[in-house]
């Protein structure tokens, strides 16, 4: 076999998939070693799984814990952070392999391109190692595609989507699409399959809660924001074009290829996927404006579109590879409009990554139309390979953009004349980072539970059957450190000389009212994003 044929084989054979997974694993290993993607939402996934391991019924029947994945990750979370992060990344890898199998079953000629789009998505690979539940949603949708296309188990696939709604509630959009299709095509059995998990979970939960309507009384998220929470008061909920473009290319830099997809090239499942992508993206742009279920414009919320975007991209690239390029009049104007959107984003963003991505896709299309389809596909793959390095700006899940003050906070703590015995903080990453990097080993980190965090748990858990107390008991020794509840945070409960390492958060005044605490806290290191202060028992 010649070199050219061998290279071509990599686009569809198992060796090619193995190469994709090796690159994915290398990024995961690097991220684990550096904690480059340590993220408070990832720690939350770990926390939910850990309390599920400690008190299964109390945690499993709290809808907020994303019960299906908390049950899966519980044994790994009980083992520690690294086993949990590795298990989470492995679930992502399994999802990649499943989507490739689905692509093969759907007749894709370049299934490894589909796999690479997912594996090297800056948002996906970072989120997978961070522990974000958004990548579990992606892995779940890959499994849905696999069940639907490769195994031909339509009802099982629908059942899975019904369960995924309890992982990420925004996936209800896909459940609605599937239900609408079931009604239109008279596939009535799909409807009970979609509802199966919810009904079974609801009935089991009814026994635990002693209330058939417990899912309505204790919803998975606050129906509306906590009153007076300055976080929400400072958020307009509007989508900014630079954020939208940055998010799109962080999902995959090949996202502009979507502009070149023809409905005719897609089969049934892929059409369902594109309908979902359009409705889902539209919903996530609109919902934050109304602040429904606490949605905001966080880029990772859009990640579930990835498997279906990857399948659609695969359809375009396989035509380029085969030299079967259909010249459609609309392609250039649509691509130019996409470039206009990317330009508008680039003018407001620090880096013109979106514009670069559209430029490369346009160049690839030009090459394909000039009879250089294989060069075009190679160029597109180069863009995918560059993704995690060059198009991660808009993802906003790396530690530097998520907690830019953390390193300075730790530097300042380490500069203190002697390691502090007790540190009180509102930074959820501090305890985990210190522990994972063996820094300040003799220091106990106390996490100041924010008012909105305790409000949420109190609102979403059942006090009548003991669930609320059981959950607080399960959290007693591990809630981003040793938790200090807002009610327990009083100056007379803090030891003289304790250190407060605070990130300047809009909610800080709710946890530490200035009229009570300012007299007790002596600033040692005033900073811009973080303050280090010493607690003095006798007020100044």
């Amino acid at each position, binding site marked *: 076999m010649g070199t050219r044929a061998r290279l071509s084989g990599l686009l569809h054979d198992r060796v090619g998939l193995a190469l994709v997974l090796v690159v994915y694993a290398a990024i995961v290993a690097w991220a684990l070693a550096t904690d480059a993607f340590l993220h408070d939402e990832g720690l939350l996934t770990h926390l939910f799984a850990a309390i599920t391991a400690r008190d299964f019924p109390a945690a499993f029947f709290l809808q907020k814990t994303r019960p299906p994945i908390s049950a899966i990750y519980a044994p790994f979370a009980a083992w520690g952070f690294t086993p949990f992060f590795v298990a989470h990344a492995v679930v992502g890898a399994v999802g990649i392999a499943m989507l490739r199998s689905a692509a093969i079953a759907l007749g894709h000629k370049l299934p490894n391109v589909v796999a690479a789009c997912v594996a090297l998505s800056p948002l996906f690979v970072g989120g997978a190692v961070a522990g974000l539940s958004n990548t579990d949603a992606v892995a779940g949708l890959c499994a849905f595609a696999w069940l639907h296309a490769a195994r031909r188990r339509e009802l099982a696939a629908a059942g899975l989507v019904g369960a995924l709604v309890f992982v990420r509630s925004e996936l209800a959009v896909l459940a609605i699409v599937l239900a609408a299709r079931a009604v239109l095509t008279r596939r009535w059995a799909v409807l009970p399959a979609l509802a199966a998990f919810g009904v079974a979970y609801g009935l089991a939960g009814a026994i635990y809660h002693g209330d058939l309507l417990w899912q309505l009384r204790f919803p998975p998220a606050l129906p509306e924001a906590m009153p007076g929470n300055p976080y929400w008061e400072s958020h307009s909920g509007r989508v900014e074009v630079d954020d939208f473009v940055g998010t799109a290319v962080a999902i995959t830099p090949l996202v502009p290829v979507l502009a070149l997809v023809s409905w005719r090239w897609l089969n049934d499942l892929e059409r369902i996927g594109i309908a979902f992508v359009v409705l889902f993206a539209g919903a996530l742009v609109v919902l934050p404006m109304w602040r429904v279920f606490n949605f905001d414009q966080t880029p990772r919320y859009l990640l579930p579109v990835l498997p279906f975007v990857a399948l659609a991209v695969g359809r375009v690239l396989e035509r380029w590879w085969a030299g079967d390029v259909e010249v459609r009049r609309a392609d250039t104007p649509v691509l130019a409009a996409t470039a206009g959107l990317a330009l508008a984003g680039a003018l407001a963003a620090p880096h013109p990554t979106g514009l670069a991505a559209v430029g490369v896709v346009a*160049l690839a299309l030009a090459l394909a139309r000039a009879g250089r389809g294989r060069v075009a596909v190679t160029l597109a793959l180069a863009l995918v390979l560059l993704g995690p390095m060059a198009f991660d700006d808009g993802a906003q899940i790396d530690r530097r953009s998520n907690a830019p003050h953390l390193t300075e906070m730790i530097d300042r703590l380490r500069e203190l004349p002697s390691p502090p015995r007790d540190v009180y903080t509102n930074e959820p990453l501090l305890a985990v980072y210190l522990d994972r990097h063996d820094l300040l080993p003799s220091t106990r980190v106390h996490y100041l539970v924010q008012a909105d965090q305790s409000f949420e748990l109190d609102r979403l858990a059942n006090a009548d059957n003991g669930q609320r107390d059981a959950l607080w008991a399960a959290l007693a020794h591990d809630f981003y450190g040793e938790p200090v509840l807002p009610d327990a945070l009083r100056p007379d409960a803090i030891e003289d000389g304790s250190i407060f390492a605070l990130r300047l958060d809009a909610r800080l005044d709710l946890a530490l009212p200035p009229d009570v605490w300012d007299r007790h806290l002596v600033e040692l290191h005033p900073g811009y994003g973080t303050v280090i202060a010493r607690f003095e028992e006798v007020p100044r």
Partner: protein
Amino acid sequence: MRPWLGPAAVALVCGVGTMVLGLRPPPIEPERAVASEDAIALLDGLRVGDRVKGWTVLGIDGPRDGTVRIDYGHGDVRFSITVSPLGSVPDNPPMHTDLYAIYYGHVHPDGAKIPPAAVKALLADTARRLKKTEREER
């Protein structure tokens, strides 16, 4: 018309746009604390966002108990210069004026090497600014 011309033109425009916008100077971190007028006056008009000897002023904080802190950044590396009334801090300052001691530290990330010439140049620039203010106040 050749079918590849349209997308090639889009690619060209995007490429030129990417190059032009990519060559913009890096954005300055938003000012997270407003430098006081006293600190700006003491430092002869130095402001957040100014570039000094190739370093960017990321922040100016103070005076707090007489001390002003200037955060400088270059790429991913940051460090701070602090200005305190002479004699208020027991350590010997690497540079001083008639009235102020000038220190440096808070290097970030941990272990990053700041070229000695850069430290010296920024300390000297700070001293020059302080001396000018001192002269004007006399």
